[in-house]
């Protein structure tokens, strides 16, 4: 049995598809095709962070809270999505698919590893960064997927405006990274 696995791990097609990272071009083409397929199937462009806001609302409701009066969830569309529940939410399926797909990919490449947290600094940076990104994405009406990727793919100028400010943010972020982690 061990021999079979060894042979598979040396197979040229296994290496090409599962082991070696795709080139940027391959990745870009695959992303383009799948986002067109998603748009054709669901009628909505791909987004990620809007779903996270819905998850927050569902968790809040689980503890007896109500978001009906919150401006962000006040539209009838947003209310209908929340009332339909998490199991009927296509964005949730997409996000779970991203996590599940990433896990599957790393397992297929034999690269799965539990990683150590090196310092408290890493936790603080991850939490602060996550909060800033999540809050910023809601203010901007999308993240680097919904606002940038899907925006530009829809030939919308807003995607390019988002790109300019994303680059500015990334520049500031890299300066902070160098200051606190180097």
């Amino acid at each position, binding site marked *: 049995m061990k021999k079979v696995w060894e042979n598979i791990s040396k197979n040229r097609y296994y290496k090409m598809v599962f082991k070696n990272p795709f080139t940027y071009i391959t990745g870009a083409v695959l992303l383009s095709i799948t986002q067109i397929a998603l748009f054709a199937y669901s009628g909505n462009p791909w987004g990620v962070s809007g779903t996270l806001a819905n998850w927050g609302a569902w968790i809040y409701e689980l503890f007896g809270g109500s978001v009906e009066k919150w401006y962000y969830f006040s539209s009838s569309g947003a209310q209908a999505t929340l009332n339909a529940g998490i199991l009927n939410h296509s964005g949730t399926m997409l996000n779970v698919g991203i996590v599940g797909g990433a896990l599957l990919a790393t397992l297929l490449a034999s*690269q799965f590893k539990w*990683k*150590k*947290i*090196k310092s408290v600094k890493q936790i603080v940076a991850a939490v602060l960064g996550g909060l800033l990104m999540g809050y910023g994405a809601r203010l901007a009406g999308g993240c680097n997927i919904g606002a940038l990727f899907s925006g530009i793919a829809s030939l919308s100028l807003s995607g390019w405006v988002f790109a300019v400010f994303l680059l500015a943010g990334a520049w500031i972020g890299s300066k902070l990274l160098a200051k606190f*982690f180097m």
Partner: protein
Amino acid sequence: MAEYELDCMGEACPLPLMKAEKKIKDLASGDVLIVHIDHSCAMKNVPEWARSQGHNVEVDEVDDGEWDVIIEKA
């Protein structure tokens, strides 16, 4: 021909690349820098950067999800 090591285990991108860029300045031509990484995107961007600088690069998969990027300074 000295050998240097850089431990970047548990560090996410782009830190391994930034640290390697800084460390390589201390090396003389012909010295070797071994960067230990466990973040798969560093396995791509560290060798790419080093090759673009003209250094000799080898990537060694030491364990599941762990690599040594061996850079010989040009």
